[in-house]
Structures are given as C-alpha cells and as structure tokens.
C-alpha cells in the first residue's frame, strides 16, 4: 500500500459567522480509491469537497494533495478536477471545445489535444456529438461531457459533487455502474459527494459518513452498514429498527418492551442509556436456528414490494420493527399471517447492535 494518501485533510475547519460548516476534519483518502463523502444536506460534505478543490479556503487546518500542502493554492494550481452538480458546461462552446478547455489552458499541442479529446469522448460514449452545443444534449449526455472535461486532464484526484442527483432513477443506476467502470479503467482517485446511501454503498471503496460538519464513521461500505459506530450512522444507512433502553450485564432492558440479550460489552457501563439496532433483513420469521434470540409481537401491516415483503411487527406499545423477507416460493404472502395476529420472530445475537 502506498504510504502517501492522495488527499489528506489535517484538522480542517470552515467557519461561517459563528457556526462551523466543517469542524476539525481529519481524513486520509488513499490513491486509486473510489471514496464517498456521505451525509444529509448541510452536513459539510460539499464544503469539504470545495476545500479540496480550492474553491473555499479553510479557516483552520491544511489540505494536502499527494503529500504536498496546497492550502494556499488557487484551483487552477491544484492537480484536481471537479465534476460540478450543475455540470457547469460552457454553453457557448461545442462539446469538443468544452472537453479541450483544460488542455488548451495547459498549452498542450493541438494534435495531442485532438487525440486525447477524441479518446475521452469515446470513453464516455459521446464520440458522435463532438460538434454539438451543450444546450442540445440530454441531462445524461451533459453529465458525460462534464465527466470527460474533467478526466481528460488526467488529474491526480477527481472531485464529484452529487453528479447524478439531477438524473432520473433509471439513468442514475446506469451511470453509477458506468462511473465505477470508468474509475477502474482510468485508475484516478474519485472523491464522490452524495446524500444517497445506496449510491455510496454500491460505488465506493470507502465511505465517510458526515453529520453536522464532523465525520461520524469512515470505513468500507460493509463496515459502515454492518457495524455502524453511532446512532446517526445506523439510522442514516437504511432502516435500522432503533430501540432505546438501558444496558445491564449483557442485556438491554428496552424502555418499552422486554430485555434483549446483546452479549457482554466491556466498553459500556451498567446502567447507561443505549440504543439497540437490528437490520430488517437480519430478522427471521421462520426456520429459526438454535441460539437465536426469539420474541413475539403483533403483526400490524404487510407491505408487498415485488422481490421482498416488509412486515411491521409491534414488539411493545410504541416499538414497531420492520422485518424484510425475500419472496421465495415458500414464503407467499397469502400463506402467511393477517394483521393483528401474534407472530414469532428472532435474530442471531450478533446482529443485535448496541450503540452508545
């Protein structure tokens, strides 16, 4: 593993008036990674990206690119390029001239520019539209132009600010796959800002989940989904069935409902208030295995959605759990329960996460 990270943020803060948009951020992004900054709007992810790009000056801390401190350098002196949320294409220039803009600024020879622009348009599958103006393209095509315009400069790091947010769902899924393929092909470090947890999970090598200007957790998609470090991460990443209670000797007594076995935790003091989370797909409704925690609840609602069915089961007054089940042949909905019935469910103890 290369020791020098492609991007390093050291104690970076951005203060607006008396509030922090970004608060003492420390972050290393490894070269060649597809790295996502994930969080709700206003969490500081775009501000962080803008500080890496040089569009916003940190009020504290340093930005390092490949080990070099670039905090004081303007955007045009940094070896990074950005794909903007609005794409920010130059409407008065043709697609070719848009893509060639960066190379021309660098004074690359004309023949070389023509070759590289041609290659790049081919990579993003726009080779037939070279002479068109941006206004005449569809949203997806404009997105590709923005990507080509940035990538053609072969930056050390490519910054992407919610580049797929303006596309419809189907095109978005398609672009997610394509973007990931392109990233593998060119081997450039991608820093990708998104508020969409599915997008972050499917595309990233690593994810930093941000909230209120701080990083809540940084890790692989699996780490973040399976082992959320905080209540915020658990609730932001999909449905998490958060329940509150009090920890005491390997059990959590829910504020409403029974005590759940969670195993001994040396890091949590007896009597502390904690949250417990069990992912909907980790809860079983049949074929229980030995050693599972088993509970009973009242079925309140059934939501059928094609490949899966979600059951809403009330464990105790005010505590309703979401349970996700694959619609395999053995589990046809009409073969199962109707509303109001008491049902048994269970989970493996290790899937019951305790969050301080």
């Amino acid at each position: 593993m290369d020791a020098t990270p492609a991007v390093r943020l050291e104690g970076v803060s951005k203060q607006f008036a008396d509030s922090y948009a970004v608060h003492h951020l420390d972050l290393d992004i490894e070269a060649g990674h597809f790295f996502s900054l994930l969080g709700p709007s206003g969490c500081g992810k775009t501000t962080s990206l803008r500080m890496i790009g040089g569009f916003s000056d940190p009020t504290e801390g340093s930005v390092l690119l490949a080990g070099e401190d670039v905090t004081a350098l303007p955007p045009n002196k940094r070896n990074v390029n950005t794909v903007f949320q609005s794409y920010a294409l130059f409407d008065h220039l043709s697609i070719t001239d848009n893509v060639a803009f960066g190379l021309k600024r660098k004074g690359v020879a004309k023949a070389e520019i023509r070759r590289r622009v041609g290659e790049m348009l081919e990579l993003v599958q726009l080779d037939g539209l070279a002479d068109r103006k941006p206004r005449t393209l569809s949203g997806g095509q404009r997105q590709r132009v923005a990507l080509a315009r940035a990538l053609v400069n072969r930056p050390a790091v490519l910054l992407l600010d919610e580049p797929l947010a303006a596309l419809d769902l189907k095109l978005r899924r398609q672009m997610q796959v394509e973007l990931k393929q392109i990233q593998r092909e060119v081997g450039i470090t991608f820093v990708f800002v998104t508020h969409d947890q599915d997008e972050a999970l499917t595309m990233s090598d690593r994810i930093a989940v941000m909230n209120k200007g701080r990083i809540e957790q940084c890790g692989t998609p699996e780490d973040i989904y399976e082992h959320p470090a905080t209540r915020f991460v658990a609730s932001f990443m999909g449905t998490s069935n958060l329940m509150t209670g009090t920890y005491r000797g390997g059990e959590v007594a829910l504020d409403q409902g029974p005590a759940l076995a969670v195993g001994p935790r040396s890091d949590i003091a007896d009597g502390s208030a904690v949250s417990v989370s069990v992912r909907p797909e980790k809860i079983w409704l049949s074929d229980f295995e030995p050693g599972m925690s088993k509970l009973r609840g009242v079925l309140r609602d059934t939501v059928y959605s094609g490949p899966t069915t979600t059951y809403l089961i009330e464990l105790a007054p005010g505590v309703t759990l979401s349970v996700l089940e694959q619609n395999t042949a053995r589990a046809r909905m009409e073969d199962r329960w109707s509303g109001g019935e008491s049902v048994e469910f269970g989970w493996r103890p290790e899937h019951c996460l305790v969050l301080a």
Partner: protein
Amino acid sequence: MTLLKLPSAKAPTRPAARTRARRGRADRRPRVLIAVTALFFLLLYLPIAVVALFSFNSKKSLTVFGGFSLRWYRTFAHDDVLIASLGTSLRISLVAMAGSVLLGVALALGLVRCRTRLGSLAGLIMLVPLITPEIVTGVASMLLFKGLGVALSTGTVMLAEITFSISYVTVILRSRVAALNPEVEEAAMDLGATRWQAVRLVTLPALLPAVLASAVLIFALVFDDFVLAYFTTGVDPQPLSVRIYSAIRFGVQPTINAVGTLMLAGSICLIALALFIPRLFGRRGGLDILSGE
C-alpha cells in the same frame, strides 16, 4: 425613452392553407379593434411619414409637395456644417457606447458579486441617474465642468453621456450576471484558467448577447440625445441634435427633413441589427432590448 420589445426574429414559412385559416379567424374579430389599431399606428407614424415624404420634395415648401427629388439630400451632402455635426454625433455615440458598456459591465459584475451592505447601497445609487430629470443632469454637468475650469467641447459631451448611460448598461447586464451559474466560472478555474481568464473566456461570452444589445441601445440613446448634449457641448462642432435645434430657430430648412429621414433609416438598420444578434448566437425568440433576454 421608448421601451422596445422587438418581435421574434424567427420568420416561419407557413403553408398557404394555414395562412388562409388565420385570415378567416381574423375576419371574425370585431372590426373596431382593427380600426383602433390602425388609428394607433397612424398617430404613431404620421409625423415621421410626413418628414420622410417632404425630404423628397422638389419645392422648398414644408406644406406643399411639388414632386419627387433628391434636392435636399444633395443640399445636406454639401452642407459642411451639418456633415461635421453628423460626424461629431457619431463620434460621441461610439465613444459613449464603448465607455459606458465597459464601465457598466464591470459595475454589473461588481454589484452582483459584492454582497455587502455597501454593495447594495451602490446598487441603489446606480439607479439614481435613471430617474433624475435629464435637464438636471445636463445643468449639473455643465456647472461641474465650468467649476472645474474645463472648456466645454465634444470631449465634455462624451464624458456626460458616458456618465448618463452607465446605469442603462448596468440595469440590463445585472439580471444577466445574476442568472449566471457561479459554478461555470469555478469550472473554468478548475480547468486551469486564472480568474481573469475565467471571466474573459467564459463569463463575457455568456454575457455577449446582453452586452451587444445594451451597446446598440446606448448608441441609439446617445445619438439622438439633445438635452445633455445641449448643456455640455462647445461651440464648434456641435452634435447633430444641437445643430438641428439651432437651425430651426432661424426657420426650418427642408434639409432637416432629409437629415431626419437618414437618421430614421439608420435607426431601422440598428433595430434590424439588434434583431440579428440573437440569431448570431443560435437563440430562438425575440430580443428584449431592455433586459437583453
């Protein structure tokens, strides 16, 4: 001043059948609307039509048409004083256009980008020349030049006209600048452009239609401006509008009709140019000269 809303530059070719259908619909409209419209255009253009007609009069009379001739155009062509005035007016208009567009665009960029209290105050002050009676501006300019000991000349007219015109350019450009996506300039810098290159290569081209539209407007405004020119001009050579005014005091010469008709033709050419500008940029629809949209 007139607020020009020019119609669409697009002239679609329409099949004959649809033209007939349109005429059929128009027939069913109340005749009185057609009459009112006709009267409106008559009142609007009759005085101008009379001037144009009598510029081709063979007689000296301003009331009796004696037959077609180019006599007064010839007289104008040999009137060195009027020709000199025309040249002076064109020079003043071109310089005022260049100066006010340069300063007005810069001011518009500054006002939109500078979001401080002082900036919004400057934005308000900028509007004052638009509502100040021109005669006040004229007298004030004259007094200022006299007070500073600057001799009135073509140069002082140019300065006064530039001062007067900046606001128009800024008002037209400000909405366009505000509508620009700030990420586009950032994108240019991201791709290696310096701040100045970003403005020159990306921002100004995006503003070009509005810049050209405001330039045409300022040229037309300054060319036929009388009040400001009257108070700030020197003795010789005088701008055309001031010269015509002086000439009329000693009795109206039909030459003035010829000059007026030529100015009208020039204005029509300018308007045609203004209509052509959006086509140049591949935009559909008309060009609103005041908003530059």
